[in-house]
């Protein structure tokens, strides 16, 4: 698990939520494990916030693609052995952007580009935060996805297999 990534995210949270700095004394760095009904409800609320943020800019189908990119980015951030393929990610970003910017004014294009970056980033943060209690499970699912889904249909980097000996 990329602990520093999580710590950086949590640190960022503290910048926007100083009130929650008043918590119990620290006793270690191990996060609680497992889902709880309360955490489930909080994730439901977080998903709703995410959608409310994106809906003024993107269609439902496009939001789904942003979530798709966010999930792969989040998994790659949390799992040491998984990386985003920058070429695939660029293609996915460009594809979505091209749909919205055709014929748009320069100002509108700039608006969309900035929102795309922001929303993919937030979707990634949502995935990271939502799995902070079950990183091994997420990584296992991500590895399985990488193994089962054709390479051109996922966003993980695939290391070429070594050439067979003659």
């Amino acid at each position, binding site marked *: 698990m990329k602990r520093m990534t999580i710590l950086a995210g949590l*640190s960022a949270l503290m910048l926007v939520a100083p009130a929650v700095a008043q918590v119990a004394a620290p006793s270690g760095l191990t996060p609680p494990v497992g889902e709880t009904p309360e955490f489930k409800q*909080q*994730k*439901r*609320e977080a998903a709703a*916030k995410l*959608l409310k943020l994106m809906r003024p800019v993107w269609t439902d189908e496009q939001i789904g693609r942003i979530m*798709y990119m966010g999930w792969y980015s989040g998994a790659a951030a949390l799992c040491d052995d998984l990386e985003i393929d920058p070429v695939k990610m660029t293609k996915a970003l*460009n594809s979505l952007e091209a749909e919205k910017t055709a014929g748009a004014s320069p100002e509108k294009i700039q608006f969309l580009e900035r929102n795309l970056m922001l929303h993919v980033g937030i979707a990634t943060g949502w995935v990271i935060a939502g799995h902070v209690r079950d990183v091994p499970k997420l990584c296992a699912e991500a590895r399985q996805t990488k193994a089962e889904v054709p390479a051109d249909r996922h966003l993980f980097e695939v290391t070429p297999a070594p050439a067979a000996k003659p």
Partner: protein
Amino acid sequence: MKRSQGFAVIAALVATGMPAAPARADYRQDAARSACSDRIRSQYDASTRNVSASERGYDRFSVTGEARRGSETASFTCRTDRGSVQSVSVGSWRRGGSDAGKTAAAVGIAVGLAAIIAAASSKRRNDDYDRYGRRDYDRGDNGYYNNDSYSPTGGIICYRAQRSCFDDYHNYNARWTQREFDY
């Protein structure tokens, strides 16, 4: 919500005004970025920009950015271990493009914004919720949880409009999304 123990550590650090990450990590990141830029320069005769590094373990970094050679640009990914370059991967060269910078920016933003949205919901309902969310929650219409959905198997719900599938705990499920909507 019960805060995680790590969360409490960070909270304590912030509350006391201490930096959340040790300065040594910054030094190691700088070394990783520098090593990769040097390698790109020597191997591809290219300069670099928008270079960012994310930690993959102790003193191991994944460095991404944009390589520029004349009027051509390409994205690159570089991995380092204790300051030494382990591998370099450069994408296709494009004339005048800045796709790599865009990708690097997306990844950078992702790390920078990690946890904010979901963690924000771990607080009590805030003003936005009170202003915009209550009515939607009360009527059960809050985005993914509408009636345009089906369950292809136990514990998975897919939403046709968003072409996305989630599990019972509102986690995105990439495999079922791929299976149902063929991304």
